């Protein structure tokens, strides 16, 4: 099967000289299209760093990330931005919504940025999927934490990205909301055949994945198929 994501010798060093921190130390792995990958590891092991590099919001010290045949570090900034808005959906632990925009506007954000026509049908189906049809016109401050996170998932899904990256998407939620969020992510993973990469501390979530990557001190400790 063709791999959608290919990470090769990825290294990230923060700072310089004696105070520098090696956050990633030559990490390599591949992810197949449609796969659900969980990344786990101790705090400070380099998970978020890895995700920022894959998402193209940060630049690596060495190594490459290839998504769908594009070496993303070869793209210049605006090419990267356009590539990201069309191919990658990012979900953070803190929902990172724009407080002055309504839920539906936040969901439409990647499209609005692309100057593309808001697609009403697509929006409706996403709102239905995330279960917020009746909250579409609300501002983020009027939503609960779980609802806000669902909005940010909707935002990640709106452009049918090839890859969804989620950094501790349930880190701030209670168990019920967590379950809803993960079910939602899994649903779109199965339904639209999107590749899903989730960073998590939650074992219950990790065991639902097709594959688990364990990271320790910037290295891959283990890479195992889940025993489903």
């Amino acid at each position, binding site marked *: 099967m063709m791999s959608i994501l290919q990470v090769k010798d990825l290294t990230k060093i923060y700072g310089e000289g004696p105070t520098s921190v090696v956050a990633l130390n030559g990490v390599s792995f591949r992810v197949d299209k449609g796969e659900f990958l969980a990344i786990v590891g101790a705090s400070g092991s380099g998970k978020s760093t890895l995700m920022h590099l894959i998402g193209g*919001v940060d630049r690596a010290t060495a190594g490459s990330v290839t998504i769908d045949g594009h070496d993303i570090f070869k793209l210049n900034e605006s090419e990267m931005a356009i590539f990201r808005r069309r191919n990658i959906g990012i979900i953070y632990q803190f929902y*990172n919504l724009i407080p002055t925009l309504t839920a539906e506007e936040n969901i439409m954000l990647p499209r*609005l940025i692309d100057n593309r026509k808001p697609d009403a049908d697509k929006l409706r189906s996403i709102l239905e999927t995330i279960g917020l049809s009746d909250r579409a016109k609300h501002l983020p401050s009027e939503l609960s934490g779980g609802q806000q996170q669902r909005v940010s998932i909707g935002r990640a899904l709106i452009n049918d990205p090839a890859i969804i990256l989620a950094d501790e998407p349930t880190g701030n939620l209670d168990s019920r909301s967590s379950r809803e969020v993960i079910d939602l992510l899994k649903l779109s993973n199965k339904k639209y055949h999107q590749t899903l990469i989730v960073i998590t501390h939650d074992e219950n979530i990790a065991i639902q994945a097709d594959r688990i990557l364990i990271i320790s001190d910037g290295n891959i400790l283990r890479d195992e198929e889940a025993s489903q």
Partner: protein
Amino acid sequence: MKLTAKLALSQIKTQKGHTIMTVLGIALSSAMLTATAGLVLSTQRAFEIVLGRDSYTPARTAALIAVGCVFATMIIAASVIVVSNAFRMSASERTRQFGILKSVGATKKQIAESVIYEGVFLSVIGIPLGVIAGLLVELFGISVANNSLGYMYESNAFAIDIRLPFAVSPLMFLLAVAVSFVTVILSAWRPARKAANIAAIDAVRAKGEVKIKNARTSKLTAKLFGFEGALAAKSVKRSRRGFRATVVSLTISIVLVMVAGAFSAAMNATIRLAFPVSGITAFAQFSSPIEYTYGDDSELENINYSTIDAHTAEKIIAKLREYNGVRVSGVGMNNITYTVTPPEEMMTDKTRQTGILAHGPTRAILMMVDGGAYAGLCEKAGVPVGSNILLNTLRFTSDRGKTSVFTPYNFAKQTLTLTGNGAPDTEITLDGVLSSDEIPAEMLSFGQAALMILVPRTDANVYHWYTNAKDSTGFAEYAKSVMAENIGSDKGLPGYYHVSDIATFKLQQETIAGTVMFFVYGFVGMLALIALTSVISTISTNLRARRREFAVLRSVGMTSDGIRKMLNLESVISSARSLLYGLPIGLLCAYGLYSGMRLAAEIPFRVPWLAVAGCVVGIFSITWVTMRFAASRTRKSNLIETIRREGV
């Protein structure tokens, strides 16, 4: 609407205080630009009306435009500083928003665009308001100018009746709008580029200000002001940029106020210099023609001049008093007939130092005053009427232009020999003395390097009649007729006369000065206002950005009093700092201004204490009031709400 535009608009809508202040700043600067353009245009029209069109018209127009450009440059400079600060603040408030946009794939261009849109929206509100206000300012300025121009014409100071017409032209509007708009967009440019260049990763992580350095504060601060003081010092050090913007704007205002204060003091000093004798509203003068004849060996052979005797002078006084019974005093002098060589021991050290009277014969001036005044002066000097009194004063201006008044002679009762020029020598006994501050000012208006002696009566080649009549213009008319009746070869008193309506002249000078001051203060005041809008919005934005900090401080148990104390100290620190920079710079500028004006008139440099005091009080109250106002608004917001909202 495009998303970038929409986000800019929502920033404008949510940050109301900041928006209002920025719009005010933009409006003020475009008002000033409009008014400047309008006044230039209207002055140009006035010239054209009075002088007509001739070959100099283009040159005059060019000169006017050049003056306009100088003012415009100052206005633009102030507004660039202020408006770019406003955009920097709003961009840094939006850092997080830009990070989110970037992580969903917005390009640099789109981020920059969003900041520029903010500039466009603010201009759309601010510039039209400013242009309207500018027209009102122009109208007001013109009416003030015309008021004094009209007075000048009526009081015969100007031969022609110049009035400024209220003038507008499409070009002027276009220019004001275009320049204002370009100023705003230019100011937004750098903050926009900076915002676009923030790495997405930093922006997403950032909770407000991007980088926070560890700020150390001295133990002394903590000891003096407690924990709150240490916190205040820390936050001043940390958000250096915000505080710097406040300090720069306050410093600009201080410098402006100081310069205006110095300018007004210098103007007043110049007027005072022109009218040293206060209380006098008009005077008439007799002066004799003087003819020198020289012999074959070009030796001075004879001086031919006419004089007025005490009797005639008193007669004229009586005549002048008939005008509504006003008070008239007279001073006359003979400064031609005699020279004197005072004995060496009579010289004071100061006289020897200056060398002004030291060597050889000096002029001897014999002075007389009207009978009543003479009796008064004799009493002052403690001598009987009929005595000769030494007027022991000298006004001296050095090569460097410094004027001083000092005592030239050591007085002792003695007899001096006066050498007559074309007249027999004579002896005179000095019976008493009057010092600088005992001598009436009008006697000193003759001020010369000479030995001055007040005598009971003499034949004067110059005589002045002074009055303090209220109706100086009427008195001057009347005095002219009296002079015409008494002075002239055919009237037995050959000589010239001249009548001066001082009060009116002084009023004219003051009117001109007042008008100039109106424009200077207006200009400076508006520039300072522009700077102040920046101060207010910087302080309140800073406080808003720190809502979370306050919420956290309160959640760990800091009282509102504690927070208030912290904010008070912060405002004291930034005020003190801007005074530290502003006062010396302002003084320097004021001194520069004086040096420039001294080229035209002899005025002493004085520190404009009034302006200094005004600045100190003004600065402290402005920062304090703003802080308190902004703080009271943040305090109203709910603690949990704040922490929660900031987490969005």
